[in-house]
């Protein structure tokens, strides 16, 4: 089969799915939707696998062009895809995890009246996400970038009768757009500098630029603003917790596994530009580390099962950015991959719990679900161990790779990052214990209805649990006799920047083991601390608004960042809107115009006649006039 053809088929399937479901979602029977929705993504997955096995065939000509999208002057934007190990890795994650989540949704959304609409949006999301990862130039990537933002908007506000959800959706879109402006300006500067927006040409030219070139720093910073918006980093992260208003599979797919990692992918893709901009790298490092800690500290006191996971996602994305900032591109992509497995699993598990409890999301009203939802419990446990970074599960290896690189860079940064890991272990095990251990704290009615989710939902959980458990094998470090296979696979993509990253003195095996040991011991300490607080002893579960120490109060209230934004951004703009309209517009500009106008009226009494009279008559006169003018020629 023609390889180019295969590549273009990958995004076409979900697009077709969207078109069919979108046009006929009210008339297509549910059964057909249940096959069509996940089916299109499965086809994409199969073709992605095919591309994966043939990726070496693309090494010669990685860029596949379909047609010229925009061409004016020297601006040339082909509608082209780039097939290389990095995009293929993303393809597999998006379509693989995407397919599992689609299957899960068949069960989860079964009773929802908007069933068809849901799958239409989800398919559209997969389509745009595929454009994002396949694009061979920044504008095509940007199509996907904004397109997934649209789908995120549509799916967060999926239950659109509720204005709280709609507000959350709008907030997500607008915050993303703030980032997108940065991305857009970054593209313009790239075009200004390199006269091209295609990855191959830009990176080729960039290689020759000096380290620390101010233009490159500006470009990378602007692009990073885009990443900050999309990947929910400080200061543009507040939309992600609110985005939990969407159905849980949406949170799993868009707001955990795929879309929010787009920023990481974009920077990994632009790795050459970034290694040339050490200043930007520092900014990314500081932002990522601050976000990782900040979000983790908020997660500790959240009581909504999905909110805990949302802050956890923000925090984990922070780790990925930290990895990028020290040039550990493979490490960041590795963590992106394992995170996609375990975080999707956590969200789907949370969905299974919410499903069983009839919509309950407050972990204070859960507990003891271990025996009632065994499959959910076991898979959730695996994911929790994985994210906490306990070997031999996947999260340990991916996080460790980032931590080790960080240590090579600075031991202080390493300590800070380890503190973040501690918090991760604590809030995750708190979540696990409060949800599944001790006895049930909900109502009797909920207790009566408790049930394990149907097979269509638990099967994806089990598959994801296997991936979350063994995902570490993808890139086992040498120390465990691993072949660093992911590193090897991705090496061509990062080859040029690897040369530029100043090689650190290789760490001795004993140091590496020591660091791993320290991390592991403190993480396990946290697991036990959480065990004592939430399982061994009666957990202290205070209602909302209970009096707490002020630092805790600060964390419970998410550091009042939403309130702060309201005061320094939303309110001033609304005030400005009022002033512009009522003072500048009406009292000033318009009054001035009217003043001049009145003078005209006063002098020009002759125009009064147009205020009265018969329209037909005027029209007659006018048309007569036109004809007269046209024939004036002959008359003169």
């Amino acid at each position: 089969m023609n390889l180019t053809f295969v590549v273009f088929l990958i995004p076409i399937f979900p697009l077709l799915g969207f078109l069919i479901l979108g046009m006929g979602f009210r008339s297509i029977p549910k059964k057909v939707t249940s096959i069509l929705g996940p089916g299109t993504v499965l086809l994409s997955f199969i073709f992605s696998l095919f591309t994966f096995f043939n990726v070496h065939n693309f090494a010669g000509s990685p860029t596949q062009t379909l047609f010229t999208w925009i061409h004016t002057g020297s601006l040339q934007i082909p509608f082209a895809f780039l097939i290389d190990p990095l995009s293929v890795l993303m393809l597999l994650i998006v379509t693989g995890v995407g397919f599992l989540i689609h299957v899960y949704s068949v069960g989860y959304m079964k009773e929802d009246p908007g069933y068809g609409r849901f799958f239409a949006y989800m398919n559209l999301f997969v389509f745009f996400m595929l454009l994002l990862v396949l694009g061979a130039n920044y504008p095509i990537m940007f199509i996907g970038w904004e397109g997934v933002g649209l789908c995120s908007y549509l799916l967060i506000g999926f239950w659109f009768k509720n204005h709280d959800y709609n507000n959350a959706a709008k907030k997500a879109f607008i915050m993303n757009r703030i980032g997108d402006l940065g991305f857009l300006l970054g593209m313009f500067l790239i075009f200004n500098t390199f006269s091209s927006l295609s990855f191959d040409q830009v990176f080729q030219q960039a290689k020759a630029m000096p380290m620390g070139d101010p233009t490159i720093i500006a470009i990378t910073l602007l692009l990073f603003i885009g990443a900050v918006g999309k990947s929910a980093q400080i200061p543009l992260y507040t939309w992600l917790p609110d985005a939990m208003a969407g159905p849980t599979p949406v949170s799993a797919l868009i707001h955990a596994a795929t879309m929010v990692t787009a920023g990481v992918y974009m920077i990994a893709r632009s790795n050459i530009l970034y290694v040339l901009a050490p200043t930007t790298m520092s900014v990314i490092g500081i932002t990522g580390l601050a976000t990782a800690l900040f979000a983790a500290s908020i997660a500790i006191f959240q009581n909504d099962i999905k909110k805990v996971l949302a802050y956890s996602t923000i925090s984990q994305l922070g780790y990925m950015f930290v990895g990028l900032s020290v040039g550990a591109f493979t490490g960041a992509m590795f963590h992106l991959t394992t995170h996609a497995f375990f975080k999707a699993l956590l969200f789907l598990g949370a969905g299974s719990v919410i499903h069983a409890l009839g919509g309950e999301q407050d972990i204070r009203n859960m507990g003891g679900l271990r025996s009632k939802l065994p499959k959910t419990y076991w898979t959730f446990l695996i994911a929790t161990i994985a994210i906490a970074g306990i070997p031999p599960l996947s999260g340990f290896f991916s996080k460790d790779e980032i931590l080790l690189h960080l240590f090579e860079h600075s031991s202080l940064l390493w300590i800070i990052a380890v503190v973040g890991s501690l918090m991760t272990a604590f809030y995750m095990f708190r979540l696990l214990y409060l949800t599944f251990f001790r006895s049930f704290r909900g109502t009797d009615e909920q207790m009566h209805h408790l049930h394990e989710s149907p097979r269509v939902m638990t099967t994806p959980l089990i598959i994801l649990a296997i991936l979350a458990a063994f995902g570490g094998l993808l890139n086992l470090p040498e120390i465990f006799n691993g072949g660093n296979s992911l590193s090897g696979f991705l090496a061509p993509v990062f080859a040029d920047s690897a040369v530029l990253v100043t090689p650190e003195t290789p760490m001795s095996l004993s140091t590496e083991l020591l660091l791993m040991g320290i991390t592991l011991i403190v993480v396990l300490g946290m697991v036990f601390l959480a065990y004592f607080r939430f399982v061994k002893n009666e957990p202290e579960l205070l209602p909302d608004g209970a009096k707490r120490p002020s630092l805790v109060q600060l964390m419970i209230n998410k550091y009042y960042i939403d309130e702060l934004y309201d005061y320094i951004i939303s309110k001033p703009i609304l005030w400005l809107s009022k002033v512009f309209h009522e003072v500048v517009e009406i009292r000033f500009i318009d009054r001035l115009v009217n003043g001049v106008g009145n003078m005209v009226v006063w002098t020009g009494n002759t125009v009064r006649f147009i205020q009265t009279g018969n329209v037909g008559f005027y029209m007659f006169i006018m048309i007569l006039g036109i004809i007269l003018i046209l024939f004036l020629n002959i008359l003169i």
Partner: protein
Amino acid sequence: MLTVILILFPLALSLILISVRQERAIRQLALAGSVAEFVLAVAAFITYKTSCHCNLLVTADWLSTLGVSLKFGMDGISLMMVMLTTFLVPVIILASFNHSYSKPAAFYSLILLMEMALVGVFVAFDGLVFYIFWELALIPAWFICAVWGGNDRIRITFKFFIYTFVGSLFMLVALLYVYFKTPLPHSFDFQWLYAARLTPSEQSWIFLAFFVAFAIKIPVFPFHTWQPDTYTAAPAAGSMLLAGIMLKMGLYGMIRWLIPVCHNTMQQFAPVVLVLAVTGIVYASIIAIRQQDMKRLVAYSSIAHVGLIAAGIFVLNPYAMQGAVIQMVSHGVNIVGLFIVIDLIEQRTGTRNISDLGGIALKAPRLAIVFLIILLGSIALPLTNGFIGEFLLLLGLFKYSMIFAAIAGLTIIFSAVYMLRMYQRTMLGKINEITALTTDLSWREMAALIPLVIMILWIGLFPMLFLNLTADDVIQVLNYCR
């Protein structure tokens, strides 16, 4: 010949219409005629593409002693505008069928008369002819707004008329002045006017006179205060004609007149105009955020959007100029779509106030989908028409000044804020007693909206057909400034 037929055909049609009595027949005739006019425009397009680059010129002597000739023709830019006009007029006519206007014969024939004048403006290759059509367009526009408009229409349309009329007088004075500076024997022919010998200070005065005329028509901040009132008070068809097509006369005029005639002063004035345009973008966007009346909200959003187009014309590079031309088309398509949707909502619920509405998507999912697509076009989501234009405009602006581009770029954030707010308050949320009986789109309403949706996606996906059409002419215009 096609060029002249394009002008005369709507004129003839409007004459016939006045004599028709039956409303049904009037509508059918108006619609069929305007569709035929569009077919003629497409034929002109095909001729232009396939035959020579002869600009489809038609010349006839007229007042030859004064150097005035009936010279009509079309280059790529004219053709784009003619296509836009003839594409939108049938849509506007079809969208008007929901109303039963008094004196339908006068109403529909005025629309066609206006079409004639607009086409005339876009195909005139002679200064005086251009001016005549320019003024001619104002008359039917004024009648449509003043006779079939809403509350306070007389005061508002009077202001609109006087304001734009005064602007045009400035243009007339400038035009005559330039005429007397053309090489002997004086002529109003475009090429002669372009060749007029003007000192720098003369050019500055001419620039200001032309600029005021165009800035009022577009409108560019701070000449815009007639616009929100007029769009709000006008009948739906009037708002569409004004915002969708008529304001493009001003932008077209800038490209056709300001750049070639005032080529030495353009660069000098550009920073001033850019400050005005960019201020207007932010100013109007911020005002739009709090508007309750949907029509007024869209009116302010339009000031922001056309401000960006005006800015793009003044940075004088091919990216922004190409963007400006394609965005003129996109803006026309999108704003007509928005006004149709608003009109449909008003007919169904009796209000345009967004705080009274809500939950319409539950009752009218088709309307909600179409509204969403049009809205995405106007907030410039990639793969819609708005993105192509705004991307090129902002890129061109960036080449001129990064600061201006960054500030003008705020429009992509603000437009999301006010448009999504409007969508949320009308389409989403719970149904209330006002929206409870909303019905979904009828086939006739779909027929008006679907062509717009197709255009939004077509330009967004495959813009090359449109960009190619104007590529050479844009360069040619810009060469006057070299």
